[in-house]
């Protein structure tokens, strides 16, 4: 099976619609950023507190918000799809106030949606050793013979069970299936513990100073990476190639960030990691195309630049689309199945791969053309500028007979190429 045999799209002839598309997308992203006052930074960069709570029966978001607002917390409540979890975030404050606010969230939610303790131990909030300590004496009193290691094993087994069930034990009877829980032990469990209907599954507190520091580091990392790419490609090819590649990747990054803003998604540390990976990965397609351009330049010395680049792009088209497509498949798998924590990361990858592939063809190569035309127009101001821009023009003045493929109109070169003297797909 072969999808891209002998393709001959005139990519660069039709470049203007795509350049306009790029500009529209970039503008849309920038407008969205401007309207929303910048990218939506996650807690990593802004500082703040995040508490993830899992409920036995998730209350509606408004109720949760109401409980928190009543305590004077300006909290943001998000539901996680596919689970009974809510993520509650409060924005940056002074360090001490953050800790206090975090505690207030936990306390008020427990008071509003939890069960009263009545002197019992909350089995959904305790650790294995706390559970074992609580049960030791009552088990003895109930004449259940259990050595200490056995008790610890049983407590660990209960905790494992809880871990497998998203951190919440709904009903103490469910523990019947756990190793070491005999009916008598279950009795004691019911006397000494109770399953609260909510559990704190994760917390994050980031002071605003660290947030600002991470922001700085992230921006630096992206700039350094772009700079490093520029140097590497300029070294392997010519500097204009490096510049073209960097502009293309920069364009990808801006559009991806714009998309994040459009879809109101959060930019966290892992998202920046995805962006950086994209910087490197997006270079791949660009390099492969440039590699082919360089190879063709050596062989087809008389060919005009634009048709030559067109040819190179066509030659590498199958490889570009296939590899990007396959990486996109894995990124999609991450996005669809990878869970909440990686959501931003995988979204960045999916968008970035699509935009990156597109930009290698429609952004990087045209820049080479523009630059070449610019140079040409400075060398021969009268003759070649408009002619080189459109590839459907009649042969130009100097047209020496060349051994391989003669300079000339694309129609002629197409025929020659089909004859099999040059490499083509």
């Amino acid at each position: 099976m072969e999808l891209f045999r002998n393709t001959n799209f005139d990519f660069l002839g039709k470049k203007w619609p795509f350049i306009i598309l790029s500009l529209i997308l970039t503008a849309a992203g920038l407008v969205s950023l401007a309207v929303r006052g910048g990218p939506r930074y996650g807690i990593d960069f802004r500082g703040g507190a995040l508490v993830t709570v899992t409920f036995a029966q998730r209350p509606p978001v408004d109720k949760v918000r109401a409980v928190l607002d009543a305590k004077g917390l300006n909290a943001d409540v998000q539901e996680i799809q596919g689970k009974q979890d809510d993520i509650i975030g409060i924005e940056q404050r002074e360090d001490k106030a953050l800790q206090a606010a975090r505690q207030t969230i936990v306390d008020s939610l427990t008071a509003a949606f939890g069960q009263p303790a009545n002197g019992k131990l909350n089995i959904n909030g305790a650790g294995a050793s706390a559970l074992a300590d609580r049960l030791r004496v009552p088990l003895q009193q109930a004449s259940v013979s259990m050595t200490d290691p056995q008790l610890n094993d049983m407590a660990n087994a209960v905790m494992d069970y809880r871990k497998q069930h998203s951190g919440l034990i709904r009903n103490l009877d469910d523990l019947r299936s756990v190793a070491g829980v005999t009916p008598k032990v279950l009795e004691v469990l019911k006397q000494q513990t109770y399953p609260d209907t909510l559990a704190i599954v994760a917390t994050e507190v980031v002071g605003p100073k660290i947030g600002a520091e991470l922001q700085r580091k992230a921006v630096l990392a992206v700039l350094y990476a772009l700079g490093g790419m520029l140097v590497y490609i300029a070294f392997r090819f010519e500097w204009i190639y490096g510049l073209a590649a960097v502009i293309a990747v920069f364009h990808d990054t801006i559009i991806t960030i714009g998309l994040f803003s459009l879809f109101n998604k959060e930019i966290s540390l892992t998202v920046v990691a995805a962006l950086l990976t994209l910087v490197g990965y997006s270079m791949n397609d660009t390099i492969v195309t440039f590699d082919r351009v360089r190879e063709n330049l050596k062989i087809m010395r008389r060919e005009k630049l634009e048709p030559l680049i067109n040819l190179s792009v066509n030659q590498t088209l199958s490889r570009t689309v296939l590899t990007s497509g396959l990486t996109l498949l894995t990124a999609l798998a991450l996005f669809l199945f990878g869970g909440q924590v990686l959501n931003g990361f995988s979204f960045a990858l999916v968008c970035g791969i699509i935009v990156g592939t597109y930009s290698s063809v429609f952004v990087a190569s045209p820049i080479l053309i523009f630059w070449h035309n610019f140079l040409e127009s400075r060398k021969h101001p009268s003759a070649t500028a408009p002619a080189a821009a459109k590839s459907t023009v009649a042969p130009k003045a100097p047209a020496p007979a060349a051994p391989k493929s003669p300079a000339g109109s694309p129609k002629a070169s197409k025929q020659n190429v089909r004859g099999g003297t040059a490499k083509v797909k």
Partner: protein
Amino acid sequence: MTRNVKIKLLVIVVVILVCIYGIIGLPKSKAELIANWKKNIHLGLDLSGGTQLVMQVQLQDAFKANADAVIERIKQELQKDSIPMSSIDRNDPNRLEDADKIEIDIKGIPVNKTSAFRSTISDQYPEWLLAPLNSTDYKMTMKPSDALKLKQDTMSQTMATIERKINGLGLAESSVQPTGRSDAEAELLVQLPGVDDPAHVKQLLQTQAVLEWAEVKDGPYGTRDEGLAKHGGVLPLGTRLVPTVMRGGQQSWYLVSRSAIVRGTDIRDARASQDQSAGRWETNFVLNQEAAKRFENYTANNIGNRAAIVVDNQVISAPTIQSRISDTGRITGATNQEEASDLALNLRAGSLPASVIYEEERTVGPSLGADSIREGFRAGIAGLIAVVVFMLIYYRRSGVNATVALVLNAIILVAALSYFDATLTLPGIAGVILTIGMAVDSNVLIFERIREELHAGKAVIAAVDAGFSKAFGTIVDTHVTTVVSCAFLFIFGTGPVKGFAVTLVIGLVANVFTAVFVSKTIFDWELSGKRQVAALSI
């Protein structure tokens, strides 16, 4: 099969075996397999559950304490040498950035004592620079190299003390590391796997635990003002007013001596125990030899007087000395076992030379970690299946070739993580999945090139060779750019992001091996021994 191909195949088999050993060892049972797996693959906190804390060490505290000690010594020195002075004081840097701007001002040195004073200071305090402000007043500042040394020493001492505290709690796999530049950022990263309620640990780590026995001059008073008033608004020389610990909402104040009889640093060991008769918890301590003598002397001469036990500038008890005490003693007053054992732990660990504040705290419960692993695994399998199916359809039997290379790539990646003791985080799992997508890139590159060569009319074996050699340069190029990106990620990133960068880099490096060496060997094996091959399933 040619000998060349046999050797190459052998190399590949050896690599596979080494990798499998690295991942699961030599298990004799399923349980052992799982245990080995868990031991070799080190899970990050976001997957195993636990707490991560970033604390900032307030180095300025150490500078202030250092300056205070110097001031005391200068006072004694100048007295001994009969050099009078009117005042000696230091400034009060309160922020970390101002730590090394510590200054000591000495005023009122008479002009005829100038040279004596100067030589005393420069002999005894070489870490300080002495600058005259005018004919009688001077300013001392710390030399930059010595200030740097003090910062580094404070950081390593703080780290060691925190490590001892954590070990004292029995938290096995915890770790403390410096992050950032230790002289400028002064940050420590504390990782506590398995701790999902860090409040107690945080409090423990933050306790400075500076312990002193001081002579009680007067007290207790109801409030600080009461104490001041009793002495006419001015405290007698060498004393200070110290509050007690708040117990049941009550607090009182004592007038104690400024200098301590014995300090926390003199304690060799400390344990919590329960008083049999009254059931109260107390902390027992043992002093080292030199301090024991001092203590014995003091207690022998002060029977009937009170001595205050001051921890972090709060009096926790002020018992009357009933008999001479030499090396062992008790601290009572703890309200429960936790308080007594915390104090014992802090005494054993030693006091922190500078206070710490928490800048970042992340806690992941084990259930969330387990969910993340499950979801990551699911995504990985989905991605792998999608890619393999496509390769088989598009490249037919050569797709099998690519699949073998891909699977081997994943195995090498996981084994490398195990051998390098790298930590697998959730972004790390994403890195593994991404490696699958990028790894197949190399195979596509080679296969497309082979197809091209075949179209151009080359014979099968020649086409395969040409495909591999021509694609090699491009493969290296494309991998280098992604690796360079990851290098920056590693430099600038924090824990989980570093994990991602590491897995991606290892995956890409392994990919060069599998895509080029392994794939080629499989082709060679398939084509070997046949002179003329009609067609290649690609």
